[in-house]
């Protein structure tokens, strides 16, 4: 079992650009949640996807959007990048149907310059 996998692991982008991060959930999981962790802070919830729909959303602007595919994998898109978007982006997978514990991927380190 590969667990939760995220790609890429590191990324450098320029202000104003757009970025797409990807997450493949653990086998058997149907729910993907995304978190942003700024340096020295705890992770902050961005949104959660279940059955290809955004189920919950945290306090993040519309520049942050996502998608879930039929195979349960997910993408996080961020438009018009700011310097403040530099952070570790974590994906967590779980199963709403199975009421399971969430598992986190290794994260994508995004640096905006």
């Amino acid at each position: 079992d590969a667990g939760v996998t995220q790609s890429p692991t590191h990324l450098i982008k320029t202000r104003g650009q757009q970025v797409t991060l990807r997450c493949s959930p653990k086998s058997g999981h149907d729910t993907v949640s995304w978190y942003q962790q700024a340096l020295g802070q705890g992770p902050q919830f961005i949104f959660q996807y279940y059955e290809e729909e955004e189920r919950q959303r945290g306090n993040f602007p519309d520049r942050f959007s996502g998608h879930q595919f039929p195979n349960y994998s997910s993408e996080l898109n961020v438009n018009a990048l700011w310097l403040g978007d530099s952070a570790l982006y974590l994906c967590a997978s779980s199963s709403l149907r199975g009421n399971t514990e969430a598992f986190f991927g290794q994260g994508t380190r995004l640096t905006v310059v």
Partner: protein
Amino acid sequence: ELKVEQNPLFLSMQEGKNYTIYCNYSTTSDRLYWYRQDPGKSLESLFVLLSNGAVKQEGRLMASLDTKARLSTLHITAAVHDLSATYFCAGSYTGNQFYFGTGTSLTVIP
């Protein structure tokens, strides 16, 4: 919204000593989690606490939950250098988002 507060934020302790990290949360939470994070790495799950009075132990770490006091503790026994990391507690409602504390940065000094 569930608010989670941890203290201390920074903890420096000598090897062999004991210490406790505290986690207070503001409203009812179905589950309380403890995670470990090494620099530049993801979150490693340590404990999931589901009910009042729950106590779990793994090696030198022991976590407990008091839902009436809305308090969870992570107790470190006879600290060793390998325990140096940042520890987060997080509350959640079943199937829903995690609310993380600010983390406790632990440094164990030889």
